[in-house]
């Protein structure tokens, strides 16, 4: 079971590196999902090792929040694609204009 601790750290770091390196917004959202998966795994491992059942509840709340985040993020991407015809982060200059 101790290998799962390293797996959760690996998933978080891989999601972070993907979020930094990727250029299109959909892939960045995918990598954020990966990070959330790693953190949820760590919460469950914490619940197993300490016996606190509260951290399993935190996983439920995390799932709710990640669902909201993905839904709003994807709808923002669609709105951006309608207005600017791009999903690349380096082609978007809304704030600086």
């Amino acid at each position, binding site marked *: 079971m101790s290998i799962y601790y390293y797996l959760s*750290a690996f998933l978080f*770091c891989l999601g972070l590196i993907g979020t930094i*390196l990727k250029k299109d917004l959909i892939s960045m959202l995918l990598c954020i999902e990966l990070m959330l998966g790693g953190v949820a795994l760590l919460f*469950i491992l914490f619940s197993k*090792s300490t016996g606190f059942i509260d951290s399993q*509840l935190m996983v439920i709340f995390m*799932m709710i929040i990640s669902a909201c985040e993905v839904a709003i993020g994807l*709808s923002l991407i669609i709105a951006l694609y309608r207005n600017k015809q791009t999903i690349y982060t380096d082609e978007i200059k809304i704030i600086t204009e």
Partner: protein
Amino acid sequence: MGVDILLTILTVVFALMVVFSKKTVVSAFALLMTLLCLAMIYFQLGTVFLSAVQVLVNAGAIAILFVFVMMLIDLEQFPNNRERNKIKLVISIFTILIIMGVLALIINNNIDTLTVINLSDNSMKALFEKLYNTYYLPFEMATVLLLAAIVACVVITNHRKDDDSDNEGADKGVHP
């Protein structure tokens, strides 16, 4: 012990496919497989309810939502293999190394003192007793958050430019 290693290897392979795949659709399906492997890990750890919710919500709804959005957006004009910024690559590798070092320190220090506690068979009952007694206010707030997210999605995606709807929609009698 063998199941641990097998599930970990599967999850690592699919997670690497998410980040380093050339096609975004392949990334989305690799994410789906990663979430399913995580659900299997949850099942193996004994949290059966969370495993079911992971399959239903994360793998079933969220990963498929990504595929739907990719169908709406023409991904052929957005290839995933553009040249990457060298400075960003170096900075991210250093960041990852530092974070991995800190996490390895924490894990190595505490992993021996952690003992596995077998949650009892009625852990789901305890879970929901806790959810509806101690955490009832965050639970209600989560429902309100979901409602707000639904409304926000509809409002954001229904936003149209005024000139389009004035010119074309009024003439043809059809919504553009």
